[in-house]
């Protein structure tokens, strides 16, 4: 019999609806911990694992990384002193009413490796949040911003209007979907959804992006490298032609590709 306790998060404590986000497993002097977003041999958690939580928490998903370290530290510091671990877990409500640990439960199992038992219990009580629908452009975009951690960076702003003086009598105004300004580095970002987009709307959006980035580069605000267009994969040749036009003035990143977050982060930092 293996003892375990489930770590729960209450997005709305008044509703008392818990989301299981992790598990701590005890077996004699051994303690194992696993939570959503933890990746083996990777220091930083994958915060997108928490994107199923209500939007109000999305700009602070990085805090779950602090909690993961907190639980890891608890298991490590106490060196298998289960009584001490239970004592600290029982006091968790003092940290925040949003985090809770259930009472001990027991799992009847025979495993050669305790980590296998941990994985099984985690899968059983926490699992991976199921996808309710195929991700659309906005879902990919949100995951990209969380994965790159730009969503948590105060230097990353959305919906920025820029007024540029081109000449004594000429002022240009353009809008960037996102703007990143840190340590004298400026990055401008536009989003353009290609799939399921109507051609007429696409013409307008692409022309607007080209105008915005050309103007930003003319006034030395951005470079071609720091002018970014986030797109999804073009579904046909005609839409791929829009990508070629955009690539003439900007760096185009396909947000459905796994390397998108790294690419975006490399430009921003």
């Amino acid at each position, binding site marked *: 019999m293996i003892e375990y306790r489930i770590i729960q998060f209450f997005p709305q404590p008044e509703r008392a609806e818990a989301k299981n986000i992790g598990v701590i497993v005890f077996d004699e002097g051994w303690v194992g911990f696993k939570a959503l977003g933890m990746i083996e041999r990777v220091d930083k958690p994958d915060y997108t694992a928490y994107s199923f939580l209500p939007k*109000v*928490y999305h*700009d*602070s*998903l*990085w*805090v*779950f*990384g*602090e*909690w993961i*370290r*907190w639980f890891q*530290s*608890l298991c490590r*510091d106490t060196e298998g002193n289960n009584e001490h671990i239970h004592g600290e877990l029982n006091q968790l409500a*003092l*940290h*925040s009413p*949003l*985090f809770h640990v259930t009472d001990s439960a027991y799992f009847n199992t025979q495993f050669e490796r305790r980590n296998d038992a941990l994985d099984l219990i985690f899968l059983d009580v926490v699992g991976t949040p199921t996808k309710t629908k195929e991700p659309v452009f906005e879902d990919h975009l949100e995951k990209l911003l969380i994965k790159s*951690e730009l969503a*948590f*960076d*105060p*230097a990353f702003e959305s919906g920025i209007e820029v007024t540029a003086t081109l000449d004594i009598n000429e002022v240009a105004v353009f809008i960037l979907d996102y703007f990143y300004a840190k340590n004298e580095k400026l990055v401008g970002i536009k989003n353009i959804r290609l799939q399921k987009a109507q051609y007429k709307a696409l013409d307008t959006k692409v022309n607007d992006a080209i105008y915005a980035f050309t103007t930003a580069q003319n006034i030395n605000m951005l470079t071609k490298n720091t002018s970014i267009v986030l797109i999804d994969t073009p579904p046909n040749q005609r839409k791929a032609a829009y990508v070629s036009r955009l690539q003439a003035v900007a760096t185009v990143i396909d947000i459905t590709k796994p390397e998108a977050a790294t690419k975006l982060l490399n430009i921003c930092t």
Partner: protein
Amino acid sequence: MDKTTYTLRRMYKKAAKGITNPQFCTVNAVLKSDGIESPQCVYNEVVATNIAQTLHVPNAMGVLTKPNSEHCFASLEIAKPSTPLPNIRKGWFTDAAKLYPDQAAALVVFDVFIGNNDRYQNLKVSLFNENNPIFCAFDHSHSLLHPYYPTDEAIALLHTDELLAKQHPFYGLIECQRLNDWCLRFMEASDYLIRECCEMGHTLNTVNVITQRKLADALVWRKDNLQHIIKKHGIQCIK
């Protein structure tokens, strides 16, 4: 660090016309009230908050409120991050002092000044996300009019060169220069500022104006002797 913002619970219709667009709203807070185990905690929290604000020590904000016949201290709920941080762990203080050297030094001097021997864990710090620096102390119920002593004795202790904050998680982890700088900042504060932090002009629950004045006297003395107290007790710091 960004200025701390607090959680808005509700916004109402515009209150009146004006260039500031005044609008009624409510903010979230945690109410603390005096009890048997901590009979002067409300006064303690108010004074600690006043001192922290006056000298810019990183401390959670709070306000006095009166939900019934007694005053309570409403500790305002911090809005960002919307997911609450865990309290700091024992093993994390070294990293916290490295990441927030100035704030840690400020907190040591502050806790020596108010005689706070209960800093352990009463601190929220972000350690693993460089883009969101947070360092915020809270809970000062075990300082000033310390609940373990009769009121006059607690004040008398503050009026001596006793360290009171005998244990502190940042002892030995802060730079001597910063410790000295913060000590000087406290010492350079005018007496009247410290008095204004302590004296409410009326009785606050069980703490009357005479007790408040006595505490002010003790803290003014303690301020003037802060460097001596720190040196006498050999608070360890990094040279």
